[in-house]
């Protein structure tokens, strides 16, 4: 196919206001990690909202403008497809085709003649309603082991005639749902109660998680395990469940919906960690990206930041830790992807929603130079408290009952637009002991389910006197470990 020829005139630099702003200040700056900018095509609005990397390192990007671009190693960007409706996710297929979640449709792009540009724009799925409301984003896809594509569907905002119990609403058609599409093309919406599920990801074990953004009915951003039949808390999506009448939803109380609400795997404290988090990616680099192998990395659009999640399965239920990792990105970090060389790519946009990094869009990568950072490595629940591990050996002489400050709180389930940490209280540390690995402090403390435990570790020193840059971590406790 020949390249599309067009006159595209941008009469004003839409991004002009942001060009002179400084990048976000760095609060979290683990040793050994550096951010470097990727040059994007000249004069092209390049807000990266879809990102994937081939095994040979070729990077594919979908932009909010509606284009798909490819960056092969040692070459310049080439445009593969154009004219899409605000994509919010991209997946590379083994056969070389590209699948993109654009607002109205899940679409496959195929280059038939091998000239590097898509010829066919094939419909994969559109079994949901789309009403041209700006907030009806379509996130995904990820592909499971059976070949099903999974995606999530944002609620609308202020769409005339919608069902709304707060800020966001639904005109129906599976808004606020997660869906899957079989290899044969059968669409099935299978879980509901999502608000603004801006990121979806699949673990190496094949579990599919999504991250929902803070707002009405969502006290703070959170991550959920997507399983069929689950309801994650935003009631307006129930209008597509035949078991609910619209009036029943309209008159339902928090207590009513709470009875069948699924709790998050982790809560992500607002502002402190994230306001508008994107997709979770698992560090499968086996150490190429540093000491956090197996953990989850997530970008936050508002804070221009990347944070970490580490999960623990207790009694068959996921829960775990959230901690900041790295900030100072140029724009809003919304899409992450690891390349095969252990480099973390960070796709960014700030249009419509401001980000700490002042640029309108950007693409950067995070590389690790091999030096050992000193940070919290992980937090795991024990039957008597928590094991808090660090990335480097600790100075035993500095460890006492006050070294790690523990507190706990919970997030209420409310229709209000966000909610603060509630019933925040300090939790006395009954004992603090350095384990034989020299890197882990085991603390004994009172344990309660349905709480988020907060750990302040700025008193901890490494053997050579280093302090962590991200000193506060949060552990969502859903299940207790049996003694």
């Amino acid at each position, binding site marked *: *196919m*020949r390249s*599309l*020829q*067009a*006159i*595209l*005139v*941008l*009469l*004003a*630099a*839409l991004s002009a206001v942001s060009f002179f702003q400084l990048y976000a200040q760095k609060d979290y700056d683990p040793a050994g990690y550096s951010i470097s900018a990727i040059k994007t095509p000249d*004069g*092209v*609005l390049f807000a990266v909202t879809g990102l994937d990397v081939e095994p040979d390192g070729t990077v594919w990007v979908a932009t*909010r*403008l*509606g284009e798909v671009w490819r960056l092969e190693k040692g070459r310049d960007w080439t445009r593969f497809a*154009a*004219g*899409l*409706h*605000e994509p919010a996710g991209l997946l590379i297929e083994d056969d070389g085709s590209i699948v993109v979640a*654009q607002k*109205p*449709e899940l679409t496959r792009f195929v280059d038939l003649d091998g000239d590097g540009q*898509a*010829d*066919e*724009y*094939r*419909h994969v799925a*559109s079994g949901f309603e*789309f*009403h*041209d409301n*700006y*907030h009806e984003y379509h996130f995904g896809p990820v592909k499971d082991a059976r070949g099903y594509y999974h995606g999530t569907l944002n609620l609308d905002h202020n769409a005339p005639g919608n069902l709304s119990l707060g800020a966001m609403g639904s005109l129906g058609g599976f808004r606020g749902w997660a869906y899957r599409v079989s290899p044969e093309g059968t669409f099935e919406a299978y879980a509901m109660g999502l608000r603004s599920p801006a990121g979806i990801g699949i673990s190496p074990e094949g579990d599919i998680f999504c991250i929902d953004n803070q707002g009405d009915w969502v006290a703070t951003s959170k991550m959920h395990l997507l399983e069929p039949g689950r309801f994650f808390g935003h009631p307006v999506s129930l209008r597509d469940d035949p078991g609910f009448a619209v009036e029943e939803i309209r008159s339902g109380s928090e207590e009513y919906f709470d009875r069948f609400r699924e709790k998050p795997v982790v809560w992500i404290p607002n502002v402190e960690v994230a306001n508008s988090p994107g997709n979770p990616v698992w560090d499968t680099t086996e150490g190429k990206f540093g000491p956090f192998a197996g953990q989850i990395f997530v970008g936050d659009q508002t804070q221009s930041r990347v944070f970490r999640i580490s999960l623990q399965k207790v009694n068959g239920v996921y829960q775990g830790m959230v901690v900041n990792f790295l900030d100072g990105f140029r724009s809003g970090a919304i899409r992450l992807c690891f390349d095969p060389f252990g480099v973390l790519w960070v796709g960014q946009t700030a*249009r*419509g*929603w401001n980000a700490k990094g002042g640029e309108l869009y950007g693409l950067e990568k995070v590389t690790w130079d091999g030096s050992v950072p000193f940070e919290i490595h992980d937090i795991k629940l024990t039957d008597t408290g928590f094991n808090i591990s660090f990335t480097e050996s600790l100075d035993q002489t500095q460890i006492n009952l006050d070294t790690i400050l523990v507190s706990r709180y919970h997030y209420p389930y409310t229709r209000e637009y966000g909610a603060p940490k509630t019933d925040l209280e300090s939790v006395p540390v009954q004992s603090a002991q350095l384990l034989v690995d020299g890197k882990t402090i085991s603390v004994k403390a009172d344990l309660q389910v349905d709480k988020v435990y907060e750990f302040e570790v700025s008193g901890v020193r490494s053997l050579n006197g280093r302090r962590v840059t991200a000193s506060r971590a949060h552990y969502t406790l859903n299940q207790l470990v049996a003694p």
Partner: protein
Amino acid sequence: MTVHFIKASSLLVVMTLAGSMLWAEMDDVTLLALREDPIAVSSGREIYKTACFSCHGHRLEGGTGFDLRDGEWIHGGDPSSILKSIVKGFPEKGMVAFETVYDESTLANVVAYVLSEQVGFQDLRYRVYRAPAEPSNLETLVQGLLTVEGRLPNGYADTSVPGEDTFVMVFEGEMIAPDSGEVHLLVSQVFENEISVFVDGRKSPAETIGPRDFRFPIKNEAQNLRIIYHKSDERSRARMFLVGNELYAPISISARKHLAATNFLIQPVDQPIIVRRKIERLPPRSIAVGNPSGLHFAYNPVTNSIVGLWEGGFLNIGPNISGRGKDASRILGEWILQKSPGIQLLVDSEPFAGAFQKYVVGDQPRFEYSDEKRRISITSISKDSNRVELLYELEGFGRKRIALTIPGSVEAESEQGAVLLGRLVVDRKHRQQFRVTLSRSGK
């Protein structure tokens, strides 16, 4: 200004017709008289739609060239100066000397047409008064201390003149509004009690249409318009627009800047362009095809039909990619059809309920929909002179009767069928494959 891909091929067409003509300058009085001559204006409109619209917009609203409806004339706004600008052109800026293409009387008609399309303020004056920060009675405020007054020669209300955080400013001049339908002055990003509007001396009632948006009815003709603006809050912007069923024109500098910041024009040059966006008046999910011929259409994959058809410029997607993208993209031309299901293929008088499968991009975009046994593909071929040909190919329909719905605003021509009562009935022997050419009805 960011230029993505520039090709000036539209200008080449007229440049090839170059010839040498003797030019006698027409005076302003003659040209102003022509403005009142419907035949001259109509003739000028036709030339404009052939030679000028690609740069200055189908509605003279501007594009790569200037807005031709407002009071701002970079190269002189008196009729003879406008004529001279057209005659001699600005070749270094991409505008040819049209004396090489058209004769004197033809170009004078273009001036007549441009003059007839003027909207906005003429002879705009302003007065600035000292004012308190808190909201007050506007009519009392304008009896206060006058600090500065003057003219705004470009005809745009400029609220930056006072250079103060709070002030009262009065704009007054002859407002020329479009002469059809209801017309309003829309003032956006302003607080309640900050604006009063007087039409021929009478106060126009404010209607609230948004949290900080108000509109005021005005006459659809020339009138005296006085606007009192008390800027009492630093967030106040007072963007002023002339609106009817659609946006006519910005009439303040702030409104003009706002529109300029939301322009992102897409024009096909030598190959069709396909765009999916929220587009004004089209159903969600529609797929717009921009053709070099100047006749563009929108295919809807839900109804598998042509739901939109327009001629002129293709799309301004700026409003849909600005901020959160709440607003719809606008077409740059004039609608021929905006209706669902619009132009739809019927099998034995019923729409074929196939599922949309794909589209293929390239010189001749192709759309396909099908069920398990039957398939329909529609290939579009851009023709010259605002026409597009559609090639329908059908598989698996046997001897079923095939027809195409043709709404009244659309001219459909086919050698493989006949148009009867709003339908193109396809001849029996062409039921597997037929072509139809679409254009504006009555052309």
